[in-house]
């Protein structure tokens, strides 16, 4: 993995050209249509003839069935995102790595959850996705730790260190992982927008616009979940700062009244993009379909931004989202087929643009 220095200039042309070619080999509608009709064994064989061949071969001796598919998907995702970091330089590297730290957050949470539920090292390792900023050595060191306290100590020199230390005290007091998980997620979102130039150029503006959308969509999603269950949780527990749609006080008021919350989103700058999703929510009260619609809207938004400014970080982020979505879709199909879901049920779960 390369590391960027401040004096390096961003190589948008090179990276966006490579990303375009990578994007071209992502599965399309026809591939999904075929996959939905296949049994898990057939899906595995199909994947052996595609982009995922190397990972399927490498993991074939250790895993089988849908687990093989899932681990191959994760490893392939890691490889592609690692390539993005390897190719990029300067601020582009910085922007990409900020976003890909979501996998570092994922890995930290996975190790914490694994230790909390007494899972063995091997099964924790299988679930890691080596696509973030952490090196293999850092991940190995995390896996070698055998207590939650050890994980917090191990991470003290990383971006998660400052937030994890006080969260660990809460964890010791309450015995639940929420403070630690929230600290990790919050650190990821806070570092996304931290330290950006005060007078950003157009590329950075678009990057920030995209991140605002992601944070806003995440806040809408969580607010609606809370509005549905009626749970009385302090916004500080689930609200992510940095979006344009809400502040903490707005959210505290809106969570108690779902109709007002929906109206607030509808009248926001995202209203047009989320119109269809909000209709689904109001008509069918189906939060899952609304989340799918939000994911689709975010994908579309990223595409729109990348088309408006092709030589920016936006095409890269749009590719990251599309690749993640591909992995989610294939995993949903394979797990869905394994669980005996019908083709229609599986198709409802896919997000395809």
């Amino acid at each position: 993995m390369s590391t960027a220095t401040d004096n390096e200039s961003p190589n948008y042309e090179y990276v966006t050209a490579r990303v375009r070619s990578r994007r071209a080999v992502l599965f399309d509608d026809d591939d999904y249509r075929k996959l939905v009709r296949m049994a898990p064994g057939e899906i595995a064989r199909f994947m052996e003839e595609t982009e995922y061949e190397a990972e399927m071969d490498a993991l074939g001796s250790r895993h089988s069935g849908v687990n093989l598919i899932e681990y191959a998907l994760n490893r392939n995702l890691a490889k592609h995102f690692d390539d993005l970091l390897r190719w990029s330089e300067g601020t582009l590297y910085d922007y990409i790595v900020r976003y890909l730290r979501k996998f570092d957050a994922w890995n930290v949470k996975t190790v914490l959850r694994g230790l909390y539920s007494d899972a063995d090292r091997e099964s924790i390792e299988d679930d890691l996705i080596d696509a973030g900023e952490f090196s293999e050595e850092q991940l190995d060191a995390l896996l070698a730790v055998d207590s939650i306290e050890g994980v917090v100590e191990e991470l003290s020199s990383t971006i998660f260190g400052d937030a994890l230390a006080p969260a660990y005290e809460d964890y010791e007091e309450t015995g639940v992982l929420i403070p630690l998980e929230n600290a990790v997620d919050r650190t990821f979102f806070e570092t996304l927008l931290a330290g950006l130039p005060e007078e950003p150029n157009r590329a950075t503006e678009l990057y920030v616009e995209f991140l605002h959308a992601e944070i806003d969509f995440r806040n809408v999603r969580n607010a609606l979940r809370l509005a549905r269950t009626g749970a009385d949780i302090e916004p500080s527990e689930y609200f992510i700062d940095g979006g344009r749609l809400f502040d903490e006080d707005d959210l505290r008021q809106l969570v108690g009244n779902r109709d007002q919350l929906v109206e607030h989103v509808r009248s926001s700058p995202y209203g047009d993009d989320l119109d269809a999703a909000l209709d689904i929510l109001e008509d069918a009260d189906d939060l899952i379909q609304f989340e799918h619609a939000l994911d689709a809207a975010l994908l579309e938004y990223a595409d729109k931004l990348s088309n408006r400014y092709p030589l920016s970080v936006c095409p890269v982020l749009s590719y990251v989202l599309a690749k993640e979505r591909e992995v989610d879709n294939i995993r949903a199909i394979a797990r869905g087929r394994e669980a005996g879901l019908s083709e229609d049920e599986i198709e409802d779960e896919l997000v395809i643009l």
Partner: protein
Amino acid sequence: MAKDVKPTRKNLMQIEDRIELSERGHDTLEKKRDGLIMEFMDILDQAQDVREDLDDSYQRAQRAINMARAMEGDVAVRGAAAALKEHPELTTESKNIMGVVVPQIESSKVQKSLDERGYGVLGTSARIDEAADAYEELLENIILAAEVETAMKKMLEEIETTKRRVNALEFKLLPELKDNQEYIEQKLEEQEREEIFRMKKIKAKKEKEEKEAREAEQDAAEAATAD
């Protein structure tokens, strides 16, 4: 067995008392059995509904967890499940249905709100909420099914026992007692007849002896007169 009973009047009276008691017991047990069957039919209807709900909620829960595993991945689901700190609590009491003690199960902390489940809102999605909701509902239905089906099983056992008792009275004890009663009555009647016969015989013998004595006296008187 009728042959083992001494055919005495005292025994006959005792057997008559036992027959009366057994018949009263038989009627009472028959009423209890019919009552239990009626209660059982009510519980059976309820149990069928509960079983249907249980099947439905199990299907829903399986689907929800499969979808959560498909969309969120296995590790996220396992992590969210392991985060639970406050486990559901069950308390059992008992209630009496026609003499049958059946359990009454009270549950608490089964249905939880989002803030009581132990997993963070930031790092999870509605899929996990849906799976948790579905499993909480399944658990409620399992508890209800356990209560209703245990009551049903206990009622069924009691019906079987009562039915066996009714049958034992109707087809074994009462017929035997009636046989004994009949046997003793016959024997007593026979004894009575024998007694009457014997009395008659004695009477006839006595009359014959008296007659013979009278005739002998008459003969003796006549001989004395002739002398």
